[in-house]
Every structure is written in structure tokens, then in C-alpha cells.
């Protein structure tokens, strides 16, 4: 076992690292929202980010595909690498977002048909041939475990779907551009337990092909789906470890107090 939690947060170097974060700081104007975050996110694993509201976990998630670029007054320093390439210094934001997709808390399908929702990204990327688009739509919907439910209504509006179906459609839309990393910001908080369990099973299936980072308020969900879990508090990364270890033998008293419901 490593000596300190900081060692543990970075000690998985030997495994296949997809995203490497070193001394990342983020400011909203004068306010520092993230303090010196360092962690290695492993490829083909599910990493959960947990912590009380306002702890910086969603802010951190957004830095992973530069969603914070869209907000004013945000300044970032430190290092954030995707496959050893710095995403802020050496990569175009659009290129990055093709490789790092995002699924949001509220399902947000476009007011278009199911087919057009999924084909949207590929079309923007220049794919025009119908046969090719058909193939992408089917593959993406299959990967999102919703093909069987939707195959007969591809040209109906996506807005007519249930919340759980809409969320899986949004996942399919994200997968259509073949990203390498999928970020999920509380993807099941607006869903019923059955839809939640479908998304969780899906995440487990998707990690074979993608690297997944998921923000969740539901600790049982982190326990069920995540290989690694990171606990954030007041903009700091307190503990980042194998999920089972973090929930069985937390190393930091603050982690233990949070996961056992003593605050938050």
C-alpha cells in the first residue's frame, strides 16, 4: 500500500492511462473552484466522481472536454492530457469533443426524428451517404441498447420517447461520432429505477470499447458501476482509488464521513 493518499491518487501509472491530469487549477474569476487536481483516469474503465453539491466534480468533468471554454471568466492552469497530448495546449477543442463525448443530466434530444438525432454528429463530420448513415444509426442504437425498442419508429420524433429512452438515445448520439471517452454528468438522476439500471448495464457494456467518467450523487450507483472512484470536497480531490476499497476502507476521515452520511 502506498504511504499517502496523494501517492494513491497517482499510483496507477503502470496501467493504461487514458486521461492524465497534473496539478489542475480552475478559477471562476477570483474564485478557485478546483485545487491542484492530479489523477490518472484509466482506459476502458468506469471512473466515478462523487462529492457533495458544489465540490467541483461537475466542473472537473467539464474540463475533460473543455466545456468550460464556453463560459466566461474561467481560467485554467495545469496539465490535462488525452493519450499524452495536452488537450488545452496541443489540441483543437472541436477535435477534442469528437474524441471525448458528453451525456448530460437531463436527456436533451434535438426536436428531430430519432434517426436525425443519431445521424446529426456524423453528418456534421461530412458523412452524407445514406447507407453509411443507416449503418452508423443502427450500430449506435444497438450499442446504446435501444435498437430493438426504436427500430420501427426511427422517423418519429425523439421527443415522444420516455425519459429513459431519451437518455439512451442521447448516449447513442454521443456514440455515433465514435468517441474514445464518454463523460456522463449524473445521467440517471432524472430517471426511474428500471431506466437507471438499463443505463448502468449499458455503461458496463460500453467500457469494453470506451473510457467512461461518470458524475453521480448516488453512491450505490458508484459502487455498482465504477471501477475507480474519486471523492471531491471543496474543489479538492480527497481520495481516488479502487471503488471497492474506497467504500470498504476509506483512507481519509473526510471520505468516510461523507460516504457514511455524516455530512453532505
Amino acid at each position, binding site marked *: *500500500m502506498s504511504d499517502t*493518499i496523494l501517492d494513491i491518487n497517482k499510483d496507477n501509472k503502470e496501467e493504461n492511462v487514458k486521461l492524465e491530469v497534473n496539478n489542475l487549477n480552475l478559477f471562476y474569476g477570483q474564485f478557485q473552484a478546483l485545487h491542484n487536481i492530479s489523477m490518472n483516469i484509466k482506459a476502458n474503465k468506469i471512473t466515478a466522481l462523487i462529492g457533495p453539491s458544489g465540490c467541483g466534480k461537475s466542473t472537473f468533468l467539464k474540463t475533460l472536454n473543455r466545456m468550460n471554454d464556453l463560459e466566461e471568466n474561467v481560467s485554467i492552469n495545469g496539465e490535462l492530457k488525452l493519450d499524452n497530448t495536452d488537450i488545452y495546449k496541443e489540441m483543437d477543442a472541436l477535435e477534442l469533443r469528437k474524441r471525448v463525448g458528453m451525456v448530460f443530466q437531463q436527456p436533451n434530444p434535438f426536436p428531430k426524428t430519432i434517426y436525425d438525432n443519431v445521424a446529426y454528429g456524423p453528418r456534421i463530420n461530412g458523412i452524407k451517404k445514406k447507407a453509411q448513415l443507416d449503418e452508423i444509426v443502427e450500430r449506435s442504437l444497438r450499442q446504446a441498447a435501444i435498437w430493438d425498442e426504436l427500430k420501427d419508429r426511427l422517423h418519429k420524433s425523439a421527443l415522444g420517447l420516455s425519459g429513459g429512452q431519451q437518455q439512451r438515445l442521447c448516449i447513442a448520439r454521443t456514440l455515433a461520432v465514435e468517441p474514445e471517452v464518454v463523460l456522463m454528468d449524473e445521467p440517471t438522476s432524472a430517471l426511474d429505477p428500471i431506466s437507471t439500471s438499463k443505463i448502468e448495464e449499458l455503461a458496463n457494456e460500453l467500457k469494453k470499447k470506451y473510457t467512461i467518467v461518470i458524475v453521480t450523487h448516488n453512491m*450505490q450507483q458508484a459502487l455498482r458501476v465504477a471501477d475507480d472512484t474519486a471523492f471531491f470536497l471543496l474543489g479538492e480531490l480527497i481520495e481516488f482509488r479502487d471503488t471497492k476499497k474506497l467504500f*470498504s476502507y476509506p*483512507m481519509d*476521515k473526510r471520505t468516510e464521513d461523507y460516504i*457514511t*452520511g*455524516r455530512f453532505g
Partner: protein
Amino acid sequence: MRSKFDEQLKSLNEEMIRMSSMIENAIKEAIEALLKQDVTKARQIMENDDYIDQEQKRIENICFQLLIQQQPVAKDLRNITAAMKMVTDMERIGDHAADISELTVVLSDVPYQVKIDNIKDMAKESIDMLKQAVTAYVDSDMKMAREVIEHDDVVDELFCKVKSDLIDVMQNNTAYEEHAADLLMVNKYLERIGDHATNIAEWVIFSLDDKGIKKS
């Protein structure tokens, strides 16, 4: 913030103390009945074993409720898991008190022809171990739990001493052979009680072990 949960954990502790004192009394009385060859009391202890079994079920139910309602993690989960495992050992101790009482009935027809002071000592040591193991759980006292585990050697030594005494009796007094064999069984049950107390202490250590949590 988690007052209901803490209340439930407190009532789990109270039930653990209650079950512990039930089995402690059962062994004490079983040994008293054995020493005095009191068949009526022995039969009473055998009947009372049902209450111990019921108490085990009650504690297991509290644990199930806690697991379902609170979905505990970390120390809470270890605490509840430990309680569930501990009551199994406690219930077995209750069984052994009943087993000893069953032998008391068999042994009641002739006066003892061996010194049974050592058996009395063994009973005392085993009861002490049990009491300490449960106190260690209730007070979250790791040091006390470790002491219980070490103390098992004392019971094991006494077991060997009583066993060799009884073998002597068997060899020199063949008419008493069968009774001596029964007393050897009593001796074994008391030794097993020490083992169960050790198990309980090991579960206490499991529930308290935080693998070097950094207190800030």
C-alpha cells in the same frame, strides 16, 4: 443527519448485550447444574435454548433492516456484518450450554469420581472471554478484543489438563469409563466456547480495523 441510523445501531448494540448476557447465564447455570447434578435445572436450560435462538433471529432481522434501509458502507457495513457473524457464534455457545445440560442429565445417576475443579475453572475462563469479546464490540475496544484471542491459550491448556486427568480415570477405573467419556465431552464443549469467543473477538477486530485510516 443520520440520527435514525445511529438509533438503529444503538438498538443493535443493546440486543447484542442482551444476547450476550443470555448465553453467559446459560453457561453459568449449566455448569452449576453439572456440579450439583441438578437435573431439573439442566432440563430448564435445555428448554431456554429456544429463547436464545429467538434472540439470534431478532438480531439478524435488525441487521437485515439496517442493510436494506441504510445501505451501509465502510465502518457501518463492517459493524453490521460483524454483528451478523457474531450472533452465529453466540448461538452456538448457547447450544453448547444445552449440550452440557444434556450430559448433566446422563451424569446425574452416580456421584462424580473425579475432581471437577478444572472444569469449573474452564467454565469461568470461557465466560470471561465471551463477556470481554462482547464488551470489546460494544465499546469498540480493539485492545480488549486482542486480549480475548490471546486468552484462548489458557482455556486450551486447561482443556489438555482435564483431558489427561480423565484419561487417567478411564485407565484406572473402568467402571467409570463411560461417565469419564461424557465429562470429556463437557470439557470439549467448554473448549469450543472459548473458540467461539475467539471468533467473536476476531469479528470485533474486523469491524474496527480501518486499515490505517488517516484521521484529520
